[in-house]
């Protein structure tokens, strides 16, 4: 089966490649896994990649919101890229567009 999340750590940058279907079921392990990765690598920049994602519900908003709070508390930043128009609708409704900047590509998200 398709792995839920693929993590890519580059120094203090952590990129989380989101799953195709971002629902409660696929979000179950994320919290534990990111907590571990963020603590081990002193992450200061968290980037969500939605390029694979075709479905998302409020479970995804819960994930983003809590990761946002967590990294803001330690002075870091959160952004995302690769969101389709449907995913952007969900992110907007969940209030995420005012919390984190969106980028067109991974490179842009990393270097800006």
């Amino acid at each position, binding site marked *: 089966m398709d792995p839920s999340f693929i993590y890519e750590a580059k120094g203090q940058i952590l990129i989380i490649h989101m799953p195709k279907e971002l629902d409660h079921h696929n979000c179950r392990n994320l919290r534990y896994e990111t907590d571990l990765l963020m603590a081990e690598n002193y992450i200061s920049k968290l980037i969500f990649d939605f390029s694979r994602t075709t*479905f998302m*519900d409020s479970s995804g908003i819960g994930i983003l919101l809590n990761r946002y709070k967590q990294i803001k508390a330690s002075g870091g930043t959160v952004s995302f890229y690769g969101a389709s128009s449907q995913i952007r*609708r969900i992110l907007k409704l969940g209030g995420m567009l005012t919390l984190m900047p969106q980028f067109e590509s991974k490179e842009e998200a990393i270097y800006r």
Partner: protein
Amino acid sequence: MEQKNFDITRSREVMRLTFDSRSENEEFARVVVAVFATRMNPTLEEIDDIKTAVSEAVTNAVIHGYQNGEGAILIEAAVEENVLSVTVSDDGVGISNIEKAMEPMFSTLPEERSGMGFSFMEAFMDRVEVISSPGGGTSVTMRKKIGR
């Protein structure tokens, strides 16, 4: 006896589905309802709206209704002219304060949940009705007009 074929038989089409309360079934449930609704020729955006709303209701049943334990979830979907109605029911713990539960950003599990489940159902469907009582299970009925 003489049989007459009135078109009335086609005015309401119903689908019922019962499945175990497991997070794996969230995707299954929303896909089944979306496929059932394709007879209404919905737009892709309408399909996404239905899938998200059903996913929210089923997730609530799994997490809150049955508290990740065992149970059965029933979905009844009906098409009547251009209106889709979907009822998601469980026999779980029920909700003591429905008004509070439906408040945006309210969650009994704020550590991981956004508390936006009902807000999403209301945003993506035209009407959302909740019937619930402590110990008496929960039933969420959502209606949406397809094709405007």
